[in-house]
């Protein structure tokens, strides 16, 4: 490990440490607001939703063709609404459901997303902290890499479950409503990165075993 690599690792380590502290502070703030300072009256919840007009595929295609014909020969633009964002404010009798909805739909970030980001930053910080010059294989990092993989897979599982639950909940409120959720917006699916991390952890574990063997080779 040369000085350049050591410098990058040290820089990243402090970056993730700062991100972890910021995440912990943000989480404290969100939980405090959710439990002690709800912005709405006691039995009211606010949800960010998107509504897609209830059009069948042929009608939508027809609208697009009409728009293209209107634009033909003219240098202008036409905006066709496909979905609109709304804030749904409604009564919710169940206190547990109210709390769950506030945590899942908190602004500007949902609480589970803040928790996931905090755990991610903390795990990466701990992994980088144990990478020392001449000792790239730390036994504890195998466990941390596995947790990182499980965390990313868990993020996708959470997203699918929360989206399914919120969609079912919103179906009672109005037709065509879908929840606005910002989980799982990365280029590659979180679960795929998680699986790759689990594979890397297995390879890393073999490195740890080889390093231990070399340590006791005379």
């Amino acid at each position, binding site marked *: 490990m040369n000085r350049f690599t050591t410098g990058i690792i040290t820089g990243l380590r402090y970056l993730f440490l700062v991100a972890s502290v910021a995440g912990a502070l943000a989480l404290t703030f969100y939980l405090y607001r959710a439990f002690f300072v709800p912005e709405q009256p006691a039995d009211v919840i606010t949800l960010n939703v998107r509504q897609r007009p209830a059009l069948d595929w042929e009608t939508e295609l027809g609208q697009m063709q009409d728009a293209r014909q209107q634009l033909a020969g003219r240098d202008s633009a036409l905006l066709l609404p496909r979905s609109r964002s709304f804030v749904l404010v409604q009564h919710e009798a169940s206190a547990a459901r109210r709390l769950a909805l506030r945590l899942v739909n908190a602004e500007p970030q949902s609480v589970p997303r803040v928790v996931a980001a905090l755990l991610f930053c903390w795990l990466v910080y701990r992994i980088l902290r144990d990478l020392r010059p001449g000792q790239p294989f730390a036994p504890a990092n195998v466990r941390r890499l596995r947790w990182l993989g499980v965390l990313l897979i868990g993020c996708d599982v959470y997203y699918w479950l929360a989206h399914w639950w919120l969609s079912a909940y919103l179906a009672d409120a109005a037709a065509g409503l879908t929840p606005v959720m910002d989980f799982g917006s990365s280029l590659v699916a979180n679960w795929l990165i998680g699986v790759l991390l689990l594979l890397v952890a297995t390879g890393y574990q*073999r490195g740890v*075993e080889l390093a*231990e*063997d070399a340590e*006791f*080779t*005379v």
Partner: protein
Amino acid sequence: MPIIVRLDVMLARRKMSLSTLAAAVDITLANLSILKSDKAKAVRFSTLEAICKALDCQPGDLLEYVPGEGPIAHDDG
């Protein structure tokens, strides 16, 4: 491990201390202590050769196979 290192026996026979051997074979005292206390997982041929030369003995004088002294370490790969 069923392979027992008899380095202490040979050192006693030759009336040599561990630190003297370490100096003679150019191996750190810590590494020789690992070998002597049976904590070593592997021994290089070069190390074995140097110890045999310094103690004027055969590898069989230093290593002994004792069945039932614990599980054999298998390589996973």
